């Protein structure tokens, strides 16, 4: 198991203004698997991912990444976790504008003070197809290329889990497809574990498994989804929600 959430609650505010973003979420994410988390706005999918990655604290429950209990770690422990076991891909790419593509890719390793594994690095760079762009700065790259740099950055340190937050949210469909294809390949070929938050059914269909969140709880799950089955499930959930109203 790469990551696990046990009865996770996340409550913001207190008293009257109390809002529960997560209400008793139980979820497991297997190794070498590409899992998508879907749900309407405000369903808590981003909060769940932040909690899983140790970026945000939980109100109740436990989170594990590999064998490490994330809940209960101090800042130093969380820093080490992020450095060694977790990788991130953001919607806004979040590359350092002053560094070249290669320097951005190597940044997590250089922060950790580790030497890159040359062979693996070459594999990653070839997989994302950026060999001739390594000396460019982010501003000289297209959105798709920037996001592929971000993917390579996440992969370079071979983390236990990569968390991707709407990685195609800022890309057109062709660039998005490239990035998603690349993520799927890294799962299939290099046994990488990826957890992706998205609201795009097409993006979700690249995953091997989709879990659906609504109102802070897991409400459904799909294995080997297609865009159509994802869309159907979402419609069904919307229907339920409307009926609930």
């Amino acid at each position, binding site marked *: 198991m790469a990551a696990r959430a046990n009865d996770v609650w996340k409550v913001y505010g207190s008293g009257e203004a109390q809002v529960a973003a997560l209400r008793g979420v139980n979820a497991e994410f297997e190794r070498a698997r590409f899992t998508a988390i879907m749900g309407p706005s405000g369903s808590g999918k*981003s909060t769940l991912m*932040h909690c899983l990655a140790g*970026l*945000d604290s939980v109100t109740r429950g436990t989170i594990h990444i590999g064998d490490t209990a994330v809940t209960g770690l101090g*800042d*130093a422990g969380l*820093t*080490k976790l*992020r*450095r*060694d076991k977790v*990788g*991130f891909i*953001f*919607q*806004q790419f*979040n590359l*350092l*504008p*002053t*560094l070249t593509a290669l*320097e951005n890719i190597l*940044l*997590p390793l*250089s*922060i*950790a003070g580790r030497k890159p594994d040359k062979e693996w690095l070459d594999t990653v760079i070839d997989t994302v197809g950026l060999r001739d762009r390594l000396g460019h700065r982010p501003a000289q790259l297209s959105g798709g290329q920037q996001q592929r740099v971000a993917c390579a*950055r996440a992969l370079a*340190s071979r983390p236990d889990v990569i968390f991707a*937050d709407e990685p195609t949210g800022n890309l057109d469909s062709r660039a998005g497809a490239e990035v998603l294809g690349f993520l799927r390949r890294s799962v299939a070929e290099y046994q990488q574990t990826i957890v992706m938050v998205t609201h795009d059914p097409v993006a979700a269909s690249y995953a091997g498994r989709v879990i659906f969140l609504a109102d802070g709880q897991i409400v459904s799950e799909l294995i080997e989804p297609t865009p159509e089955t994802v869309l159907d499930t979402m419609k069904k959930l919307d229907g339920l929600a409307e009926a609930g109203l």
Partner: protein
Amino acid sequence: MLRATLKSLLARKVRLVLSGLAVVLGVMFVSGAFVLTDTLGRSFDTVFSDAYAGTDVGVSAKPKIDVGEMEGMEVAGTFPASALEQVRGVSGVASATGLAAADGARVIGSNGKVLTSVGAPQFGSNWTGESGQVELREGRGPTADNEVAVNGAVAKAAKLAVGDRVGILTLQPKREFTVVGIFGYGGDRDSLGGAQEVTFTERAAQELMLGQPGVFSELSVKAADGVDPAKLRDDIAGTLGDGYVVKTGEQLSEDASAGLKEGLAFFNNILLGFAGVALFVGIFLILNTFSIIVAQRTRELALLRAIGAGRRQVIGSVLVEAVAIGLVASVLGLGAGIGVGALLAYVFGQTAGGLQLAGLGVPPAAVISSFAVGLVVTVIAAVLPAMRAARIPPVAAMQDVATPDRPLTKISVAGAVVSAIGGTLMAFGLSGTGGNTLLTILGGVLLCFIGVALLTPLISRPVVGLLGRLFSWSVPGKLGRLNSGRNPRRTAITAAALMVGIALVTGVTVILDSAKSSITALAEDTIQAELVISGAQTGPRPPSFDPAVLDQAAEVPGVAMVAGLYGDRAVVGGKQGWITATSSVPALREIYRATPTAGSIDSLGPNQLLVDSKTAKDRGLSVGDTVPVQLSRGDAQNYTLTGIYAESELFGGFVIPASAAANFAVPQPTQAYLKLAPGASVDQVMPRVETLLADSPEVSVADRADFIEQQAGQLDGLLTMIQILLALAIVIAVLGIVNTLALSVLERTRELGLLRAIGLRRGQTMRMITVEAVVISVFGALLGVAVGAGLGAAVVRALREDGITNLVLPWSEMGLFLGLAAVVGVVAAVLPAIRAARLNVLGAIAHE
């Protein structure tokens, strides 16, 4: 990680240069001070090694009174001519020359005034022929007592040629001489270190420079070939016995140079004072820049945290930036400092009448202190922002975390505590009970500034709101006002930097104006003389005049009484202090309205003295006591205390009769008070007294009001100097405002784009930024004026015992500062405003 830090640093060059500029200025003054003292110090070394070039061993006598470098003039001891014969008899002596030399040969120039010399001595001595470095250029040495030879510096300054007549003031009043020779020094120099030199015959020099015939002040001994000067020195010392100071030429030159270098320490301290102020204000500036940069880089720093950077690495990355800026600023500051040091050394050399400068030197101390100061200041300033950066949550990389408006409670409490400590420290220092009072007061002031700076965010809300209302008649004005209140901490630090400078200027002005007003009031109250003869003192030697003037003035119709005053340092009853001699005790008593508390103060006979009641009490003296008195010349004599007068702030200390003043360092009166007969007119008497002073060009006569004005006016020069010093602090603060605004504009790019998109015109945009700047700077000035007036008033209050009884608040200056601040705000806003107005609307909206 290091590379990421350095690259991001390079990407933000301009704003870092701005913030580093304050450090550059500070470091510049530090290194400039060291370069200047080093260069001048080595130049002095050269001058003195030249001056003593012909001397293997020098003999002098111990001075009667040891006077400190900054305390006044020391009179060299003299010894009889027989010592010269004794020394000539010592084996190993090739030749020995007796010198009768002293400072204080004041040549009257073609304009009727005494030649000025800025710091350099005006030597008078006997002509000893062409020896050492001395080379006759024209004419010959003096052979008659009314002949002189002068050095090139004197000849040029007084436009003298061989055959000219020239008036010279010495221990005696003006005398006329014929110039028979003009001499220079090896290397075609007019002067050694700017010194003016006049040479007389031996007899004239003894009389005019030492005050006694048949004595010398110095012997210059040349050793025979192969004789070691150190051994010869010991032999001569053995022959002469006690009371003589025997040194090798090398020692003499080192000692003389060391004495002057002590004087240079004063310059050094002024420059270091500049540096201190610049660096203190610079800390605010750097702190603010880093805070803003950290705020702007939130996402970037959060990303680093998200991909595994620890808190320490983030702190490290910010501090590395600080170190880099500190290094660059130190290098630039060092370079600028070398320039400033060289320039000041050149100016000094010119004003000192052509001091030949040794090559420009950069001592290791300059380099080390530059880097130490530059780095330490920058890093200290960056510590707080770095710690704030480390607290950015990694999740901020994924979402726009609204930075919560942190409550100001903690910082305000801290501010109150620090201000209180500072205030207490100041009170402690001012009460004079602490050990090192000046340091305690400075520490207190410093803490007060920091405390007030911490309190500023709290104060800024209501005050900035109120100030802003003055400008909010239009929409841009309102936006500007709201912007300046938006981030109270940022506004506060920017304003606090301005506060420091303005508070210091205001505080010093309050103190000096109060002192001036108090002295004026006191003098008007006390001094009962209609006319005063005095001159402006520019060096250790007070201006003096012919004592005959005292008697002549008393004869002028309408003059009722004349009190001539002579002053010097003396050892009275074993303690060194100031002593006054007067030509007329009754006149002095009348003029200062002195009242006796014991004995009589109506007259003084030979070897009788008076003292004020406070000194009498401190020393445990009572009327009838015998007190030994050692003056600058002659032997110690016993005086009898015949009267004690009530102490007053304007006049105090021991008083002896004028007959004893012959043994003073300056045996001529330095001041005289003239009381007119009832009904006599000042306008009629003054011109007559003026004509009496024709041969005493160092002094003039003034009526009472002018005299008091002159005395109080001496403080004006000090005030001007301090104001110039502090203008620098204000310039740095202005840089701070420019910096803050520029960064704010950058930060609000998207917002500005939006405002422009919905129709804000360019002019309106500029007005908005300008209002923000003016509000910040006026706020800073307001704080500065308030804090400065408070500090000044506290000091004045503490000095009440010392006679500063009037508290004067310089309202017009304070108003001027506020007005200036508004102008400063407008000026500071120019560049950021232009930048904001030029924004490309579309690009700005898309800006992240």
